[in-house]
């Protein structure tokens, strides 16, 4: 009976995937050499998480971008990069999935000066991983 349960559970966990045109890798986005650093802050972890690095916000050619520098963090299942108005994820702009890329574009409609933090947040389990309080450069 235990074997049967194990087989059933194994099947339930079974899933597979294969990348396609829209998921076949990321084009590394870079900060332009002439971009000006506007805001920056070091990441601080929440309980049980380890994190290193900083968030920097650059302005170039009419748009803002967040760059994560020297960045590493504990593994999480559904980590997002938020530009937030506070140190908790209540009022924020979701910049997308945390991935191997280090640059995240901020939508043009966002008034960057209104936002004070960059957060790394696990959306699936609603768990905050790290907080970077921004200061103006």
């Amino acid at each position, binding site marked *: 009976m235990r074997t049967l349960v194990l087989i059933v559970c194994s099947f339930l966990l079974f*899933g*597979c*995937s294969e990348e396609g045109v*829209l998921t076949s890798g990321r084009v590394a986005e870079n900060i332009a050499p002439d971009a000006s650093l506007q805001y920056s802050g070091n990441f601080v972890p929440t309980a049980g998480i380890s994190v290193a690095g900083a968030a920097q916000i650059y302005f170039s050619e009419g748009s803002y971008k967040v760059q994560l520098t020297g960045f590493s963090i504990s593994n999480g299942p559904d980590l997002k990069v938020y530009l937030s108005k506070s140190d908790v994820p209540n*009022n924020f702009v979701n910049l997308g999935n945390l991935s191997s890329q280090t640059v995240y574009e901020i*939508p043009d409609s966002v008034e960057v000066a209104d936002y004070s933090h960059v957060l790394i947040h696990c959306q699936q389990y609603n768990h905050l991983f790290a907080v970077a309080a921004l200061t103006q450069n």
Partner: protein
Amino acid sequence: MRKLVLVAFLFFGSKTLFAQGCSDAGICSIDKGFDRETDSVRQVIETAVVYSLGEADVKYVSPYVAYTKHFSSKFSFTARVTYSTATGSFGTRSQFGDAFLIGNYRFKPKQQKQWSAMLGFKFPFTASNLKINGYSLPLDYQSSLGTIDVLAGTALKTGNFDWQLAVQIPVVNLNRNSYFSEYSGTTDFPSTNLFERKPDALFRATYTWQLPSRKLTFKPNVLFIYHLGEDTYENIFSKRVSIAGSDGLTVNINGLASYRLTKKQQLEVSVATPVVVRDIRPDGLTRSFVLGVSYQILF
């Protein structure tokens, strides 16, 4: 002859249309427990595979297995597990979808009319947030909507006609989808980050036409699904917004041919295509064409 024309139309009809689909094996297929006429059958094991075409270039192969136990001539219970493989520009994603547990009760016939009722639940195996290579996927690529649903319905059999009325109500939303159209590189699918789905109501009319030998049965039917409200999602600014046009009516025409191989084995082929659709279909149940084949063992 008219029925043959209808079946042919279902096979070769308007492939370019889209519909809210029956691919989730939800309310579109809840009538299974109602439709067996053989009182001697106590148990049924069914295995099936469904091929369908979705939005954009998405294609699906969705097998399922089901077990039905007839406790008496009145009461039966069905358990079903679904699996789904979706293939398209985002890649290929395969995963278990949902488990369905459904009870059916058949009332005593009166004056050639027979009522039946069903009540069931749908449990998802995923939170509808499967990814490929770290990229979030639209609901069209998810194997489940990530909701625990209640399914309830009633059916009336009068002569060769069956009339069914049912609702599928999400009661617990476990959906943690994180797809944003803005970050995906395509506009084929709407954003569905932290999607919340509204209930559906269903009405189906089925005509049963059996050959004199009783080996072959045709069941053309028309299926009306009304999505009772606009679905919502959380946009990139962390605000919950309604998806305009996601509510409303879908009408599918379906055909089913059932062939009795032996006294204890049955083969079914079904096709479906839509004729009326909602403006926006974010739930990923959209299909332009569905072809299903199922094999049943009755004992």
